[in-house]
């Protein structure tokens, strides 16, 4: 069981105070967290000025972009001399770890702080009236250990809401005294070093509680419900054309996907710049071409490229302008692939991604 430190402050305040003391004590170069933008809405920010820490909203219930992807772009493969403190949600942290394993960034010199997560609201609701009106309801839900009925589809169906690989975990789900108390769970030496000198009561307990188990069960049921609604296994060609027929080809799902890290996507490369001869051939063989062409190929191509590492964050569904349930579809397909390779993306830092190394004795029934 991990060591814990309980401080007499609300969770957000406690994390802000910790971040501030880390900067002021010179333990970190800066912090990476969600912060208020012009007092309305939030965005990810790198902060060094201790005064600006007041604008940090580490647990604000929106995800304007995947923090894992944003962080990976800041901490590239070259070494940094001094550490950064980082606050991420569990799925963002998994995405980050996945990007580390895919050799897109470095894990060292980072203090990763995460929390048990109640989910986030869809990004579009940020500009839907005053977002702050939803926040008290969100915190009340967290205290009761319940998700929000209007949270992202993927959040309502997420079972990985207890972070893996965090140095410090802040307990939020099912903590009735969130406004007065905050408990940090120490998962590593780096986490321990951060908490040195912080006032509070030390103890020892497990992050998993009755409340987290209850929430996990509720989410399992919701995930099953979403899968059934989608009729994934019986989609077939008609079903797929029905779903992706309205795709406008904006590629937003790819842009926000934390796992789609390629600077030049295969589907933007020259081989998809179709010549007149190609159209003529297609017209001969198919008697017609959908425009923009190869939508299904793009979507399924993205599935083969990233679904095995899909963390199910739900950014893709959030940004889809025509409301295709991209995340539900991709995470369901992803789960089938992950089961095939016995792989949970972003969970075990030492387990290699499935397409880095293949084994001799596996998949023996595949050959005909």
């Amino acid at each position, binding site marked *: 069981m991990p060591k814990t430190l309980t401080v007499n402050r609300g969770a957000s305040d406690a994390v802000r105070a910790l971040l501030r003391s880390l900067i002021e004590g010179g333990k970190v170069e800066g912090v990476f967290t969600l912060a208020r933008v012009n007092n309305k809405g939030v965005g990810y920010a790198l902060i060094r000025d201790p005064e600006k820490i007041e604008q940090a909203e580490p647990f604000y219930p929106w995800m304007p972009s995947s923090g894992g992807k944003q962080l990976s772009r800041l901490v590239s493969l070259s070494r940094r001399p001094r550490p950064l403190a980082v606050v991420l949600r569990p799925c963002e942290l998994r995405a980050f770890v996945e990007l580390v394993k895919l050799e897109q960034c470095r894990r060292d010199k980072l203090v990763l702080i995460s929390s048990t997560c109640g989910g986030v609201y869809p990004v579009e609701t940020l500009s839907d009236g005053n977002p702050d009106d939803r926040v008290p309801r969100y915190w009340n839900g967290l205290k009761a250990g319940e998700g929000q009925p209007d949270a992202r589809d993927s959040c309502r169906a997420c079972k990985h809401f207890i972070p893996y690989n965090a140095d410090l975990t802040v307990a939020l789900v099912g903590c009735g005294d969130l406004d007065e108390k905050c408990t940090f769970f120490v998962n590593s030496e780096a986490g321990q070093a951060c908490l040195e000198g912080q006032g509070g009561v030390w103890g020892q307990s497990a992050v998993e509680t009755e409340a987290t188990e209850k929430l996990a069960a509720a989410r399992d049921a919701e995930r099953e419900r979403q899968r059934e609604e989608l009729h*994934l*296994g*019986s*989609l*077939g*060609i008609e*079903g*797929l*054309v029905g779903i992706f*027929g309205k795709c406008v080809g904006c590629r937003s799902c790819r842009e926000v996907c934390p796992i789609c890290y390629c600077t030049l996507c*295969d589907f933007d490369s020259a081989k998809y710049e179709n010549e007149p001869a190609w159209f003529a051939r297609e017209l001969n*063989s*198919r*008697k*017609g*071409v*959908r425009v923009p062409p*190869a*939508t*299904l*190929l793009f979507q*399924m*191509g993205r*599935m*083969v*490229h990233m*679904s*095995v590492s899909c963390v199910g964050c739900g950014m893709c569904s959030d940004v889809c302008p025509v409301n295709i349930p991209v995340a539900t579809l991709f995470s*369901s*397909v992803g789960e*089938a*692939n992950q089961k*095939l*390779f016995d792989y949970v993306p972003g969970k075990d830092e030492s387990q290699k991604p*499935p*397409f880095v*190394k*293949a*084994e*001799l004795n*596996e*998949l023996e029934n*595949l*050959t*005909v």
Partner: protein
Amino acid sequence: MAESFDPKILYVMCGWCGTGGAETASAYGMYYPENVRIFRVNCTGALSTVHMLRPLLEGADGLVISGCHPGDCHYDDGNFMARRKVALVKTILDSLGLDSDRLWFRYVAHGEARRFVDTAAEFTDHIKSKGPNPLATRSDT
């Protein structure tokens, strides 16, 4: 109608083993169905998953991939990587309710001319019994 169906089949071959099998077959004057189009890659492990998907979505009726027998790969584990990729593509096709049986993976060694010819014929018969790939003629994908 079924009699006149002449399937378009893409046969992806490893440049070391599979292609060798085809060369051995030609040396012996063996015959394989004419509708099979052979596509040589340096190693089946180098074949991208999108290259497995694209023919099935854009016109081929079937795709068969021949790698080296386990332990024979010129690059140690290219055939195993290919096997993982095929498994991935098949799982995706299955979970979307599409036909994953239009994609085959089989080991064919350099000297196995008969096995190569048999695979080509067997796969052609298999696809003939399945009929044309419905995805290949759709204009709304």
